[in-house]
């Protein structure tokens, strides 16, 4: 394993992570809800009674965050290598997988691990492991 020191951004990663943690803490303290983004999106599709208002507001916040960022600074780079067919396949897998597995990086990875939930630990190890394996396969076995 070689570490790419040029790409490594420890301070913005830690600070951005802390903001994510703070946002999750706020949603818990004020709304009593888990900041699990796949659950929030899925709940809007399922239309759980009484739960759509705050979910719409949270998603609106996510959508508006780049505009708020732009008030203060230029947006950080967003580079998407994948082509459209791959994006569609990946999107379908992420959509089905996160609903079937009851969560994603936010719900299981941040909130679940913060609750010391054994289910979320298993889920996080599962999607991280599958993510590592997939990138290994596409970049090193199939040659990207």
């Amino acid at each position, binding site marked *: 394993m070689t570490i790419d020191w040029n790409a490594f951004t420890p301070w913005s990663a830690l600070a951005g992570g802390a*903001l*994510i943690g703070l946002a999750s803490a706020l949603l818990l303290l004020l709304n*009593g809800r*888990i900041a699990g983004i796949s659950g929030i999106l899925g709940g809007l599709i*399922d239309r759980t009674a009484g739960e759509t*208002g705050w979910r719409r507001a949270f998603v609106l916040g996510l959508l508006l965050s780049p505009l708020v960022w732009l008030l203060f600074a230029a947006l950080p780079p967003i580079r998407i290598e994948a082509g459209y067919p791959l994006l569609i396949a990946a999107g379908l897998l992420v959509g089905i997988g996160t609903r079937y597995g009851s969560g994603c990086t936010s719900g299981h990875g941040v*909130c679940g691990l913060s609750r010391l939930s054994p*289910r979320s630990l298993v889920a996080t190890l599962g999607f991280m492991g599958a*993510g590592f394996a997939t990138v*290994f396969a596409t970049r090193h076995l199939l040659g990207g």
Partner: protein
Amino acid sequence: MKRTHFSALAAGLLFGLGLLLSGMANPEKVLGFLDLAGAWDPSLALVMAGAIGVALPVFRLARGHSQSLLGEENNLPTRRDIDRPLVIGSLLFGVGWGLAGFCPGPAIVATGAGQSKALVFALAMLAGMGLYHLLNRRGRTPA
């Protein structure tokens, strides 16, 4: 606007800013983290550490309280069983994450940033969630 809608909007906004600042909203950086055998960028491990470092004490604090500060019923998951849907679903999600470098939150944020490729990913993701909803309603896949 209800107070709980405003607080959810603020939380979503902060969450999105955190994703942008941390690099999570950039698939190139996510794939750099997932590529252990290449030139590895460990940054995202620190995103996780930063997030859990802040959230864990607050989740601890909230435990044992039945209501939020705005008077909402605290709605936290209670299940502890490890079942097949949890494992299989998480593995499928990980494959999709590794293929494109997007998980749900960053896909929404990058869509807000005007990235058409992120919008296509997000629409496919919502379609996948809709598909799950249809199958689940027929009772094929218990939640």
